[in-house]
């Protein structure tokens, strides 16, 4: 396939872009993707957007307590998802990646279960919403502590290398995460070991309220790769195919034993940082509306139009189909009910030591009383 042969330039001044804002294919090679494949990208982006909207409603209507909206990140997230071998490669996502994990194949009922923190959550309601994970899909359960998953991604990749599993670990994070010491430690070790791991920054230029100018003085995120002797790619993350092709390129590079890469996908965060945030305190309406005009889904729609693959009726039906699918999953998740309160004492260790037995017994008695 064509895409396997394309080499992308590292450390470019301008972001790598394959589709321009008008939807024109601007790359010097042909994408080589089938109509079905191209439509699949659209479907996944649309599903990500609809999921986001639905989650926002769940918060507004008091059915869950928290959400970290990913609108604006869809092209990046769907591009990443398509670049992995699902269920084979490992994903180390962060809390803004619900669009990504959906595209990876996590069943919506699990996403809603996690969001509701109820018995439909495979993780037993232990964490806040936006913290998915899936053992069958090799999606390492999200941890709130920013950048704390970077060294584990490196470790998993070292294991892949030592055991020759031909897997790749893909690890995502925001621009703010790059300031953490653990980020540095993890990327550096991966580079020394030439471990098959790809670090992908979803750079929305804000860490909650902190603009990237106060986060780092480097010209961009990709250039930070120079500190580790690995390639860094600066990519337009509003372009789903650029995101896809570049991530796929470095994933296969890693799989071939050529070591880690850093990819920066420049995106926008259309919503507030989270449902607990008020972005009007630090982002001007002008900035926000300028960003929203660069909707990654709209850009891709224009591309499909130019490719002759767009059809309003198809899109509408798709929208309805996804909406229904999500609604069915939500209904199902809502039926699950509260997790057993005594599960509080499970999974601390493989088996409960005496002190947890005692503490559990106390609560069991209280609940009976």
């Amino acid at each position, binding site marked *: 396939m064509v895409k396997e042969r394309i080499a992308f330039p590292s450390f470019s001044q301008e972001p790598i872009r394959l589709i321009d804002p008008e939807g024109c294919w601007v790359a010097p090679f042909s994408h080589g993707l089938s109509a079905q494949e191209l439509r699949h990208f659209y479907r996944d982006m649309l599903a990500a957007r609809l999921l986001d909207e639905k989650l926002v409603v769940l918060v507004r209507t008091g059915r869950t307590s928290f959400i970290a909206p990913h609108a604006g990140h869809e092209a990046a997230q769907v591009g990443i998802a398509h670049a992995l071998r699902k269920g084979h490669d490992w994903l180390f996502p962060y809390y803004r990646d619900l669009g990504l994990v959906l595209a990876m194949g996590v069943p919506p009922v699990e996403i809603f279960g996690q969001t509701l923190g109820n018995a439909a959550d495979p993780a037993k309601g232990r964490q806040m919403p936006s913290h998915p994970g899936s053992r069958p899909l090799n999606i390492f359960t999200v941890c709130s502590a920013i950048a704390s998953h970077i060294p584990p991604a490196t470790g998993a990749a070292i294991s892949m290398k030592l055991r020759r599993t031909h897997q790749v670990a893909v690890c995502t994070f925001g621009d703010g995460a790059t300031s953490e010491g653990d980020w540095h430690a993890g990327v550096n070790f991966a580079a020394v070991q030439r471990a098959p791991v790809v670090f992908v920054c979803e750079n929305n230029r804000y860490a909650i309220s902190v603009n990237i100018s106060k986060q780092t003085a480097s010209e961009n995120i990709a250039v930070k790769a120079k500190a580790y002797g690995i390639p860094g790619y600066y990519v337009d993350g509003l372009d789903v195919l650029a995101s896809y092709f570049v991530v796929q390129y470095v994933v296969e590079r890693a799989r071939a034993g050529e070591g880690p890469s850093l990819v920066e996908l420049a995106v926008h965060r259309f919503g507030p940082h989270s449902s607990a945030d008020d972005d009007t305190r630090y982002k001007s309406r002008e900035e926000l509306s300028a960003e929203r005009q660069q909707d990654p889904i709209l850009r891709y729609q224009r591309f499909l139009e130019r490719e002759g693959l767009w059809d309003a009726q198809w899109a509408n039906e798709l929208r309805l189909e996804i909406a229904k699918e999500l609604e069915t999953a939500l209904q199902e998740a809502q039926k699950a009910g509260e997790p057993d309160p005594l599960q*509080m004492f499970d999974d601390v260790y493989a088996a409960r030591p005496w002190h947890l037995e005692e503490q559990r017994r106390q609560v069991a008695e209280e609940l009976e009383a």
Partner: protein
Amino acid sequence: MPIVTLVQAINMALDEELRRDERVMILGEDVGQRGGVFLATEGLQQKYGPDRVMDTPLSEAAILGAAVGLAAHGMRPVAEIQFADYVFPGIDQLFSQAAKLRYRSGGQFTAPMVVRMPSGGGVKGGHHHSQSPEAHFAHTPGLKVVVVSTPYDAKGLLKSAIRDDDPVVFMEPKRLYRAVKEEVPSDDYLIPIGKAALRREGRDITLVSYGGPMVETLKAAEEMAVAGVEAEVIDLRTVMPWDKETVLNSVAKTGRLLVVSEAPRTASVASEVAATVSEELFDQLLAPPLRVTGFDTPYPLAQDKLYMPTVTRILNAAKRLLDY
């Protein structure tokens, strides 16, 4: 006198100290334009500028370590850690640098800094927005540790912390931020670090707590009063150094001690208070010192309310003590 919430009292204290002493400054994630995720620093950057109310990169090591250097060089930094749970990526700066700087330099260099952090559970935060890590600090020589529970105290203790010559970890139970309002003088007053507050007098049993569970402890004491049991309630306020004298005086009178804390039980501040009291008042105890604490599990989202000391749990333990 303005009637304010705990988080507003924090804001008042910061505002007044920034005005009073130009060496005072604030640094942390989102403390500037955003005013902090809980609005503790709201309006302060607008008033004092971005140099004195400084947004930092997302790195607790940078925040805490820079605070050490700022303090050693003569400033009075107040560092904010966005949630107590996130102190750990930077904790070596507290443990290796801040806590030991005076000691290792033989008194030549010091780190008079405050580390503010919202702590504790009860806000559906799951295990990374709910922890109560005070035992880690109390176990580390060189750090002072304050945990507030009322707006009035919060202001007076934060001012004392800022003027203290040693590093002070200042913990703010986030579930109390907006839970109550009370009168807080708008002029300057200090509450000494290391002094407990007697929240209620009583002769039958001593309840010692601090921070978030003060609410449930006081409620339990009221319920006990209805049943004719007079509990003495002590709010430690400072857990390092904790006010042993006040606690011993009370237990010497009541003969019964219950320590209430929402941190995990093992090797906790509650363990320390219980162990010290049995050591020093063995003969005067009518029953064994008991503890009601958080459980030795990570903090679970789904069991957010069940994890923390409930009024029932406190009453049950008190009953055990009274029936002993």
